[in-house]
């Protein structure tokens, strides 16, 4: 099966993007280069095509009840125009996906889900619909989505609308904003650790809005940024990537996401029993942060050892472009997971010493 193109494919080619197949989508891994794009987001602004993400509307009388059953977070705490991060789990506590929920109204919610999991998630939702009085609508092909991230993001986007963007708080959004001459949903959300927005357009408006943002951003150092920078940025910002820090095999508790798993929520949710048991018994393994003490670059999948014995693996690792040192996340047995403990990361069959550190890598920046 050939990969799909987002509405912005031709723009990426025009901008010199190096196109790859990511989760069945043709997207640029970089344009100018991973490091300049990463630095632009930290110091000025970057714009990402994230139209490959899945968008699903859940509406009906039982929308809230259904989502409370499906998701680990307490969706009843959401107010209109607010966004919440949550995980969707299997009965054994493993994750189906991590996602964002936007509350449009008492009976209408938008879910934004990972591109790699869109089909799987929708099938899961439909299979678990039971008697809930709701409609599940996959609108992914009807919309385009762009992320503008960095200290200059608001300044840049403000040039394109009369709507006062400073009134959109963190993890809040506004629908039907007249932006760049088109009707858009704008949220103050992102996956980089910087201030920024995600702009959701009708699919047919995406190209025009993208180009208007590029033009408006030129004076503020806005660069188009690809998948490569997207991963180094989110990793530095301590944000998980499904498939790496959280997965079907790694529960949200093991991933360090307990805050988004409301075990004391009144409603039952899929996975609640297994996760409650796991929490009460104490985690046998967890995702920790580490810093290499020797030379090398840790990468996802590399084995982690202690005294010659395997204790886990690296879930994400990089030579951090911002911090300029080799750091990573690793899923390891809890008994070795204390801050300051030394572990060995196996790089090309040789152990390289590493030290466990706080996962909030950007904390002291």
């Amino acid at each position: 099966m050939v990969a799909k193109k987002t509405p912005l494919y031709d723009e990426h080619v025009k901008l010199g993007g190096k196109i790859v197949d990511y989760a069945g989508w043709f997207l640029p891994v970089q344009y100018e280069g991973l490091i300049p794009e990463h630095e632009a987001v930290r110091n000025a602004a970057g714009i990402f095509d994230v139209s490959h993400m899945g968008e699903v509307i859940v509406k009906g009388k039982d929308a809230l009840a259904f989502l409370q059953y499906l998701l680990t977070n307490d969706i009843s705490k959401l107010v209109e125009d607010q966004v919440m991060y949550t995980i969707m789990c299997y009965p054994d506590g493993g994750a189906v996906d991590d996602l964002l929920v936007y509350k449009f109204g008492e009976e209408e919610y938008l879910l934004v889900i990972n591109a790699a999991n869109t089909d799987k998630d929708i099938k899961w939702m439909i299979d678990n619909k039971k008697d809930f009085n709701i409609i599940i609508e996959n609108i992914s092909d009807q919309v385009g989505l762009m992320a503008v991230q960095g200290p200059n993001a608001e300044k840049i986007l403000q040039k394109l609308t009369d709507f006062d963007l400073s009134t959109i708080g963190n993890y809040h959004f506004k629908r039907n904003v007249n932006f760049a001459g088109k009707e858009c949903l704008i949220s103050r959300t992102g996956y980089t650790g910087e201030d920024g927005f995600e702009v959701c357009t009708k699919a047919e408006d995406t190209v025009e809005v993208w180009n208007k943002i590029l033009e408006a951003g030129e004076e503020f150092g806005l660069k188009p940024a690809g998948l490569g920078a997207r991963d180094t940025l989110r990793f530095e910002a301590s944000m998980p990537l499904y498939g790496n820090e959280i997965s079907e095999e790694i529960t949200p508790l093991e991933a360090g996401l307990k805050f988004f798993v409301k075990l004391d929520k009144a409603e039952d949710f899929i996975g609640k029993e297994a996760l409650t048991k796991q929490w009460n018994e104490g985690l046998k393994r967890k995702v920790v942060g580490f810093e290499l003490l020797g030379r090398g670059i840790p990468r996802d999948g590399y084995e982690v050892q202690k005294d010659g014995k395997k204790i886990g693996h690296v879930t994400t690792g990089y030579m951090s472009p911002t911090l300029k040192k080799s750091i990573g996340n690793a899923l390891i047995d809890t008994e070795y997971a204390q801050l300051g403990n030394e572990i060995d990361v196996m790089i090309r069959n040789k152990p390289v010493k590493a030290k466990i550190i706080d996962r909030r890598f950007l904390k002291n920046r």
Partner: protein
Amino acid sequence: MKVLKDLYYTKDHEWLKVEGDEAYIGLTDFAQDSLGDIVYVELPEVDDEFSKEDAFAAVESVKAASDVFMPVDGKIVEVNEALLDEPGLINEDPYENWIAKIEIADKSQLDELLSADEYEKLLDEEV
């Protein structure tokens, strides 16, 4: 892509420059371009011995780690330590900034390598 005439090449995009019984080995312009900005180089030790197609060094960009393979059997006689602090030199000039110098164990193996023309043909097919 820059391809120098008087070098041997491998299908894994290494180049080899013979000087008597020794040779310098590095990465081609195509290789450094594909990798992107190189941020880390791992060098072998002097006196290490390798067979043809053994991974003897590693070159890493932000996104990926890539092995560098021996074009022929040989023993390391010198490594380019400048690359430890400035891995980006390979991107700047991949033919100037060699990775290791070897003593060639078996010169007949040079016949198995690609000429500049053959390497250029390979690049045309790759693209």
